[in-house]
């Protein structure tokens, strides 16, 4: 059986450099991780940051504080 599905926030990027940069910034702050961009989400970069939905407020605070370059924020169950 594959990984159980759960609610996530996906942060997509235009470039891989932006994705890797966010991963470095988020180290020790966020609970999420970089994952391959799911097929039903379109973006310039094939990596995206997946944050558990239950951590949404901290995640939004992080985005406001650090203003990392990103493309879109997508709510997804997957």
């Amino acid at each position, binding site marked *: *059986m*594959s*990984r159980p599905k759960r609610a996530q926030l996906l942060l997509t990027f235009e470039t*891989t450099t932006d*994705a*890797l940069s966010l991963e470095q910034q988020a180290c020790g702050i966020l609970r999420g*991780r*970089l*994952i*391959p961009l799911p097929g039903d989400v379109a973006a310039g970069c*094939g*990596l995206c940051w997946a944050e558990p939905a239950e951590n949404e407020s901290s995640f939004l605070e992080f985005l406001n504080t650090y203003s990392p370059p990103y493309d879109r924020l997508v709510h997804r169950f997957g």
Partner: protein
Amino acid sequence: MTTLNLLGKACPIPVLETRKALAQMNAGDICETLVDNETAVQNLSKMATQKNLTFTSEQLEEHRFSVRIVADGVAFHSTEEETADVCIPCTPQGKTVVVLSSETMGEGDPVLGQKLMQGFVYALTEQDRLPDTILLYNGGAKLSVEGAATLSDLKLMEEEGVEILTCGTCLNHYGLTEKLGVGSITNMYVICQKMSEASFIIKP
């Protein structure tokens, strides 16, 4: 309209049952077949195309597809061989072994290569069918040790019954023997045996 609920049935059953139903129907009648995987949709579509039957398919929800075929009133007189010819197996038969021989995927930028490998292991956990065995050797041995970004994904797969085997010689070489975080240590004979007995070997 006749609806066949074949959710949970692997090919060729959906194709066989749909043919059987169509054989009983009059021209213009619609046979709707419900299946739970895209391969079955492809097989049914291929069958309809081969018989010049009008059809539509749609995904109703996750793991639930509908294929509607309009009968032409001509009975099917297919043999099992014909059906087998139409069908792509829904699931691969035999054992699947994933070989991770490096901590990076592909050649080029090693930082990108690491991210790609981490992404690959994550993507493995999302496959409908998990591999039977994952072999890790040489640089790949660094993926199954404490602190590795891939460790949680490998643990998840082990919990689901995937056999995780890491080369003992390699762990020793990298000074990581005490750090193995998932699965067990193996040797070249077992690595060779697992690969020899595999029907499919996936090596990113």
